[in-house]
């Protein structure tokens, strides 16, 4: 892939793959559950589990913009960012901005909760159940199923907010956040100076991450 030299890489390919596969998985998971294709629901759910484990690992050992330490900020940084976003021209952050970071944490947290509850959930007839549900009794499994439904609603609200925010950046702040999430790059002139950081993927770390992600997926099926 040839890109103009003035573009900078803000999202490595694993981040983008994680994002868009999750975008595809959520409606697929909803649909398989709705239509009762529970074997596929479980397969897709385990895929999401693996992706989440990788994303959490990548949040500690991954490329700079993927790391939680680089974007999870305290209230003062969030306020300062909110104020700076009122100034024109708006200069986008290289990775997640401090306000958007809240949304990232909420979305990831909800997805982790959603998948975890699903592992233990039991349907109302006791016929279908998550791969770890044999560890809990019927009533507890039903409770997990109810949480599984509740977190899904929260997730839908959070996704709605996320999409509205992306729309707001586009319409109000004239900043396209979708293109960098597809290509990984944004024009250098709209990026802040710290974009000198490399956001490439380290192969050894990638291999470790994939192995780590696979572990729980196989473990819960034993």
């Amino acid at each position: 892939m040839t890109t103009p030299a003035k573009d900078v890489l803000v999202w490595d390919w694993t981040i983008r793959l994680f994002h868009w596969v999750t975008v595809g998985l959520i409606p697929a998971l909803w649909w398989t559950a709705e239509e009762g294709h529970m074997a596929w629901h479980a397969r897709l759910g385990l895929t999401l589990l693996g992706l989440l484990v990788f994303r959490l690992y990548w949040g500690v050992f991954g490329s700079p913009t993927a790391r939680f330490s680089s974007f999870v900020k305290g209230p003062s940084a969030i306020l300062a960012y909110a104020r700076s976003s009122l100034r024109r021209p708006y200069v986008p952050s290289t990775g997640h901005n401090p306000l958007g970071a809240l949304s990232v944490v909420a979305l990831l947290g909800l997805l982790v909760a959603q998948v975890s509850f699903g592992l233990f959930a039991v349907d109302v007839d006791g016929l279908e159940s998550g791969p770890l549900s044999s560890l809990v009794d019927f009533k507890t499994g039903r409770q997990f199923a109810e949480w599984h439904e509740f977190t899904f609603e929260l997730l839908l609200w959070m996704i709605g907010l996320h999409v509205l925010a992306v729309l707001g950046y586009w319409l109000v702040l004239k900043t396209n956040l979708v293109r960098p999430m597809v290509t990984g790059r944004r024009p250098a002139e709209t990026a802040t100076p710290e974009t000198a950081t490399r956001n490439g993927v380290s192969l050894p770390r990638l291999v470790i991450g994939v192995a780590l992600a696979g572990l729980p997926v196989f473990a819960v099926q034993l």
Partner: protein
Amino acid sequence: MKIQTLGLASLCVILASCGGADTESAEYRGDEELPNGMTISEMIETRQDGLEDVGGSFKTISDELKKGDPNVADIQTAAANVEAHSQEIGDWFPEGTGADSGVETEALDSIWEDPEGFEAAITKFETAAGELNTAAQSGDVEAIQAAFETAGGTCKNCHDSYRADDD
């Protein structure tokens, strides 16, 4: 900006439609006595406990069947329990124990509006539960698996038409 306003407006519409109450709550008559001597609320509680117990037994069988080496004795106990409850279920839905009794229940009015259809669904379950127990007592895991799937199908068959969706 216009698109954004449109987005906000549609969000408000969605919010409003979620908030609306969809059922009028009926006047509470849970203390009224039924011909069988139980109150309406006692009857509803009995059948909910019973059906929950059937669900628990199904889960036990399902959990065992998922294992490479299922515990047949546990399956037998559970299957016997399902069959016992299947004999009682016909008495669990006397007239007057629907949602209009004011007691919380997912039993739909279609149970009493279509008694023949409901009875046919119950009979299917009774038959399948009997066959499940027979298969369980034989100890043949493959036969249990097949009978379990059939019995599970009869749960869904009835629930699709006669129980409110829980979501």
